[in-house]
């Protein structure tokens, strides 16, 4: 297969970026999208040019580090997958593919297609944890209804990739925060700190410049893990109840 790639290139966080056009040929349909970029980078290095910087790590949809806005969609033209799970067979031979960085003011570009997602770490540091003292009790001593465990697990599927923020016209991080709050609020171990957690994480999210949720549902549609916006309702409930108790 052959493609024309229009890629956002930006030297560093301060530099002014621009689109560059590259042509690539001889790509197998079963090549993953990131492998195709690897091949392109090898070509660029051979030509003595600067390779394209993009985030990647596990390449199996687990770590959440790969990003990329491909043809106007985060993680590209497929549902419930990460960019590393996208394959060239999803495109037509000869396609023009535009590759851009994640879209959000809270995720500034570091270089080319790499964005700084530290804001997510800061939100997690604000409350996305359970504090324990003493020894850990035997896990089987705490009984958890199956439905609750399932819902907590569905929320825990979030890999923190940030596609929800990038997809949202408001640049809101609600789905990410909701997934974290919901996962812990649904389990007895997370209950003692639930109120404090919801307040702290929402406050941090606002402080870091993410937008406000207007329930467009774009986050859910683009989330590689299919995290439901029903979790956002739980976050709102936890947050409001915590505020009322104050």
């Amino acid at each position, binding site marked *: 297969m052959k493609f024309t790639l*229009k890629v*956002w290139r*930006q030297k560093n966080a301060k530099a002014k*970026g621009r*689109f560059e056009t590259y042509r690539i040929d001889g790509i197998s349909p079963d090549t993953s999208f990131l492998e195709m970029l690897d091949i392109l980078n090898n070509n660029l290095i051979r030509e003595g040019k600067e390779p394209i910087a993009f985030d990647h790590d596990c390449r199996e949809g687990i770590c959440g580090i790969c990003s990329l*806005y491909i*043809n*106007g*969609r*985060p993680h590209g033209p497929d549902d419930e997958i990460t960019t590393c799970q996208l394959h060239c067979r999803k495109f037509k031979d000869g396609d023009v593919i*535009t590759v*851009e*960085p994640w*879209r*959000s*003011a*809270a*995720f*500034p*570009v570091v270089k080319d297609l790499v964005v700084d997602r530290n804001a997510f770490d800061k939100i997690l540091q604000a409350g996305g944890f359970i504090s324990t003292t003493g020894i850990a009790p035997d896990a089987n001593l705490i009984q958890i209804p199956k439905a609750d465990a399932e*819902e907590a697990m569905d929320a825990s599927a979030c890999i923190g990739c940030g596609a929800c923020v990038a*997809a*949202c*016209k*408001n*640049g*809101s991080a609600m789905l990410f925060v909701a997934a974290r709050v919901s996962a812990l609020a649904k389990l007895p171990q997370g209950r003692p700190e639930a109120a404090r957690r919801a307040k702290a994480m929402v406050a941090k999210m606002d402080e870091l*410049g*993410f*937008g*406000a*949720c*207007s*329930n*467009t*549902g*774009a986050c859910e*549609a*683009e989330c590689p893990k299919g995290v*439901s*916006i*029903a979790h*956002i*309702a*739980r*976050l*709102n*409930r*936890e*947050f*409001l*109840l915590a505020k009322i108790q104050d």
Partner: protein
Amino acid sequence: MSLSGLFLLIFLALHLALNFAALFSRELYESVCEFMDTNLLVQIMVPVLAAGFIIHILFSMFVEFKNWTARPRAIAYRVPNKSKALGWESKYMFVLGVIIVGFLVLHLVNFWAKMQLQHFIGGEPENAYDLLIALFKNPYYCAAYIVWFAALYFHVSHGFWSAFQSIGVSNSKWLPRLQFLAKIYAAVIFLGFSAVPLCVLSGLCG
């Protein structure tokens, strides 16, 4: 925003119920107007309602501005955001809101200012029924009125369930139910409010 929105949704339903009086007879409509002009509770609720509108509008402007600042500006994105949303209306709530406010002003000038406002300022109100018939005999006015409620249909079909979601009164079971109810509520509002102008225009009443 969600609370003021829900408050305005209740108001819409009440207003619609009163409108239906016009479909039955001149006498019924006039007595309803009489009630609205004299009942003490209604007099108290008028400023509360106005406050509801103002809070809803100011808050939406604040949120819209905040969300505007959350969008990236350093990158000249070439491809428009193609992420699928739950409905196009969810992305254009503010634009729909602006359209609704525009027609609302027209509506207040044409109806309310000549009816209830006159009671407040001690003026001479016009006969409500005559006013209604005269305005809705004009097809352009009717068309504008229906466009107004079409915009409201889309605004409500998102706003209804979205408000419940924002106050946390929703879950995986209720989310689809509320979305369905939103469509029903919006359709009732749209069809109900369009009924009076259409009846007058077609000569079925008046």
